[in-house]
């Protein structure tokens, strides 16, 4: 049933020709990757990381820098960006988890690190062009059997690229979550003292989830930047980090698809609400508030809870709505 839904998504560009709708979907898929990777850290391992936007932004910038200064292809650039982000995440994560920072303090310290990175990006004009940002003129290329190496351009091509990327990420994360490692994450989230007593190296697995999540963010950053065509320090802003948290909370943090739904809503919202910019921002704020007060489990979570039998609800290893 779920497989069918995914397959249908592939058919969308053949049925829908509205550019706006397709564009919204492309952004949804890419931001969905960002939200899903964040949820690995937040929803599954229980750590509220405010570093995700930094990983997102650095992923974008390093991809561009690699392509410009090293002359590599987009894909190699993206790989290098992910590796670079992993390096930073290793440092930040090691510091945070070695010092056993809890919840709130973890959020604050990751926020501090994120801001530090943003300020460096903002001020290192020679490399990043500072607040002016970088306009991207090159495009990623892919190899098609009959046509050779062609650039990815146009909404349709981006649609398929981002959909495939999203699916790859969802499949990877699902595998992880359903494995012994996913059980470690859940144990850490639910009772890390007990996890420790049972022989689970909490530090190691917190770090692993942090690294995997940030790698996902870096990849999403590369894709987002090259789709949009423009990178600027705002990618790393607190607003971006908060938007990611909002997506996950809106959609539901207890499943893989929740964050994607959240991404869809937040991406589509500005287009549905056709008021002035200020009013749109206000409504965004109100939606955030209403969701957390009325639907703390998010849309997907609330629906799942309404459907499920009381005894079986809420177990992560047996989630039926994880794809």
């Amino acid at each position, binding site marked *: 049933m779920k497989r069918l839904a995914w397959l249908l998504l592939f058919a969308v560009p053949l049925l829908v020709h509205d550019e706006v709708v397709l564009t919204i979907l492309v952004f949804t898929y890419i931001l969905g990757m960002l939200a899903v990777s964040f949820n690995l850290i937040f929803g599954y391992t229980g750590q509220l990381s405010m570093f995700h936007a930094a990983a997102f932004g650095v992923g974008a910038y390093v991809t561009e820098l690699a392509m410009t200064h090293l002359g590599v292809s987009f894909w190699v650039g993206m790989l290098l960006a992910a590796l670079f982000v992993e390096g930073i995440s290793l440092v930040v994560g090691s510091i945070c988890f070695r010092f056993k920072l809890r919840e709130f303090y973890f959020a604050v310290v990751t926020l501090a690190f994120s801001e530090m990175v943003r300020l460096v990006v903002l001020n290192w004009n020679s490399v990043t062009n500072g607040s002016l940002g970088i306009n991207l003129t090159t495009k990623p290329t892919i190899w098609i059997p009959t046509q050779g190496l062609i650039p990815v351009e146009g909404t349709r091509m981006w649609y398929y690229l981002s959909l495939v990327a999203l699916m790859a990420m969802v499949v990877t994360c699902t595998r992880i979550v359903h494995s012994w490692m996913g059980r470690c994450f859940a144990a850490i989230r639910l009772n890390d003292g007990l996890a420790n007593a049972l022989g689970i190296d909490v530090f190691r697995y917190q770090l692993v989830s942090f690294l995997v999540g940030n790698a996902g963010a870096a990849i999403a950053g590369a894709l987002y930047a090259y789709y949009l065509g423009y990178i600027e320090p705002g990618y790393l802003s607190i607003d971006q980090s908060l938007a990611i948290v909002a997506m996950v909370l809106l959609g539901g943090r207890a499943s893989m698809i929740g964050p994607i739904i959240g991404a869809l809503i937040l991406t589509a919202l500005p287009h549905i609400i056709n008021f002035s910019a200020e009013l749109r921002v206000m409504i965004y704020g109100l939606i955030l508030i209403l969701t957390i007060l009325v639907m703390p489990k998010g849309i997907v979570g609330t629906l799942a809870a309404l459907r499920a039998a009381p005894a079986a609800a809420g*177990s992560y290893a047996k989630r039926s709505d994880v794809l």
Partner: protein
Amino acid sequence: MFFEAQNLTKRFGGITAVSDLSFSIEREEIVAIFGPNGSGKTTLLSLIAGVVRPTAGILIWKSRRLEGRPPHEIAAAGIVKTFQNPQLFAELSVTQHVMIAAHLRLQRQLGVRRIKTLFRADGGSAELADRVDHVLRLCRLTELRDEPAVSLSYGAEKMLGVAMALMCEPELLLLDEPATGLGQEEIRNLDGVLRDLRDHGTTLCVIDHRVGFLGRLADRAIAMHHGSKLAEGAPGDVLRDAGVVEAYLGRPHA
């Protein structure tokens, strides 16, 4: 020497919970630790399991120094402790608890190669499922296997704690008041489980208030008072020791 604690001391600010305590445990023994509340029994177990760091003293386990090591390392080395107040994973079922506890086992079996299993569809191997069934049966939790752990009775929660500890395949199992809160039948079952464990090679160190239960079960006993060892020997002897009686019950009036 299997396990030995030498001059263990733990101070929390101005309070000395454990004071210059030395004792040893032999293979496949069942050692009981008696003592009223505040005598330092739980702190002693916490010290051994790595939950707290000793202020002084050393712990030797199979020729390895253990003091200062984190709990997960000590568990991996073969010493596992249960909790006095049962610790649970809210939201998860009994079986899922035991599955999580299987991590150490997986780590021991596969080591680094377990990363490969990440990308195979996981249902767990059949062997793991058997082991889980076995542990659940031992602890009389089979009927409750799919229940959310938070809905269990206190006694069942304690048995779940034992089940999780068993899943870690310990060589030395430390039990912190396993019988407290259990009914008569559950205690009998626990007694059977523990004896069975010992017969199959696990060494046990148990603290509890139920003097009768421990007295029957243990090979050797240690009585603690205000953080120090008061007496040591066969359970019956220790319980009749004059010093112990005076410390726990006071002197008879003239």
